[in-house]
């Protein structure tokens, strides 16, 4: 009997020791992985900054692009146009669709699962495929040509999954008790959604929109075949429009302006970093506002 207890104890001690050693190995591994991720991220940013920032000069910000100044200003402006237009198309659809899925559809409705499956599928498709689709569908079939509009429509489809995922999550985070509070005061469903649910989830929705914006800033493959590569500020939505990421692609393809390419990348990275920072900040603010509820 005693012996058995003794054996049991030794086994336990051995287990503990083993546990401890695997534990410390695991902690070193995860720590190293985390460090690697940070190092790679910071490394890339620093490298591009070192390569690019010294070559930033005023000629890179001239209104008209020429092969001498390789100005990024038209591309930067087009990117902003592209951003606004894509969000204008995708946000209303994405938010309205999410409201339907979260607030109106019955939980047992198989349609919810189908839509969410589609969302996951859409987010897994490589952007070049979106580009090919857009080129066949919007550019050729609808005859929109290489234009800001074709590009924005293609990007809207691409960012719809991001917007729908974040919006659905934000809506679900609004406690049921808050909706009940509104219904209990005699407010209808739509009134409750517009005045209680949406304002409470606005932070999440905005941070999703900003994530989507980051995607738009960085997208080149989907735009080359849909918005074209013309390096001029587009005057209307049917004009072709080279965005920053496409601009970088074009410049690096030509191979003559490697410094300017880095300088332009540096500007793009700064813009994207600011966007992501903003997303985090807004998310934090919205969490602080609802944490007591």
């Amino acid at each position, binding site marked *: 009997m005693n012996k058995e207890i003794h054996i049991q104890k030794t086994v336990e001690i051995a287990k503990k020791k083993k546990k401890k050693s695997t534990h410390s190995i695991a902690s070193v591994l995860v720590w190293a992985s985390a460090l690697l991720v940070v190092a790679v991220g910071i490394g890339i940013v620093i490298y591009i900054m070192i390569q690019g920032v010294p070559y930033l000069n005023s000629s890179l910000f001239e209104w008209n692009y020429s092969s001498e100044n390789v100005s990024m200003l038209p591309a930067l402006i087009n990117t902003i146009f592209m951003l606004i237009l894509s969000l204008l198309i995708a946000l209303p659809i994405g938010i309205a669709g999410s409201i339907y899925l979260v607030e109106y559809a*019955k*939980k*047992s409705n198989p349609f919810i699962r189908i839509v969410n499956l589609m969302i996951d599928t859409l987010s897994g498709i490589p952007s070049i495929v979106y580009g090919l689709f857009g080129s066949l569908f919007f550019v050729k079939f609808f005859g929109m040509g290489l234009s800001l509009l074709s590009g924005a429509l293609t990007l809207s489809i691409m960012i719809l999954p991001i917007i729908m995922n974040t919006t659905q999550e934000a809506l679900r985070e609004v*406690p049921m*008790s*808050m909706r*009940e*509070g*509104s*219904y*209990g*005061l*005699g*407010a*209808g469903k739509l*009134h409750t959604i517009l*005045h*209680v649910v949406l*304002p*409470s989830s606005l932070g999440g929705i905005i941070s999703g929109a900003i994530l989507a914006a980051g995607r738009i800033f960085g997208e080149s493959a989907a735009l080359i075949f849909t918005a074209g590569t013309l390096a001029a500020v587009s005057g209307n939505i049917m004009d072709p429009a080279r965005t920053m990421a496409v601009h970088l692609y074009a410049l690096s393809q030509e191979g003559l302006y490697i410094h300017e390419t880095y300088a332009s990348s540096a500007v793009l990275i700064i813009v994207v970093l600011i966007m992501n920072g903003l997303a985090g900040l807004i998310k934090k603010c919205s969490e602080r*506002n*609802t944490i*007591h*509820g």
Partner: protein
Amino acid sequence: MDKIEIQDLDLFYGNFQALRKINLRMKAHEVTALIGPSGCGKSTLLKSINRMNDLIENCHIEGKILVDGKNIDDEDVNLLRKKVGMVFQKANLFPMSIYDNVAYGPKTHGIKDKKRLDEIVECSLKQAAIWEEVKNDLKKSALALSGGQQQRLCIARALAIEPDVLLMDEPTSALDPISTAKVEELILQLKENYTIVIVTHNMQQALRIADQTAFFLQGKVIEFDRTQKIFNDPKEKKTRDYITGRFG
């Protein structure tokens, strides 16, 4: 005529019958307490009176509830809920300012005039005995208030739509004794103007504030009488066992 009349009410969640043949009558300007162990159906009954159970899928109701002699199923649900206000177990204020929380109801029902809204907000906060504590902070977030204050603000919010009936679902269960005393005092004042139905786990509370009390067990009303009668001389053995703490 009784303010609220519940006739032969059966309520089902899917196949589960949560309420069985409930018959209760509530007079205007009286407080009715619904007591009983957890899961006995008292909150479910409360939520039937302003049709909050409509929100639950698979919930099916037979029998009738009359408010002012009218079947509540024939009324517009939003107007019913304006007439039959509700205070929930946990304070569920909106993430807005104190003012906007109280003004939400009246605004919903079409009151836009700023002066009128100011009056309603002040009057409701005074009725809920919280005006003195918040009158200088109306623009501050309601979520920054203490638990007891939040619950009284919920009462103010419910009063702002000028209901006739006030349903309260264990309004003090999350509050400390001092806040509880304040809310109870408030309920006794409010019954001058409102008909109150309150679900409570606290039997002493029922004894302190209720004119009549219904004792629930497993979806049935075991006994329904004046509160003094229920607590001093209950007819049913189960009622006596429950109020003397022998079970539940």
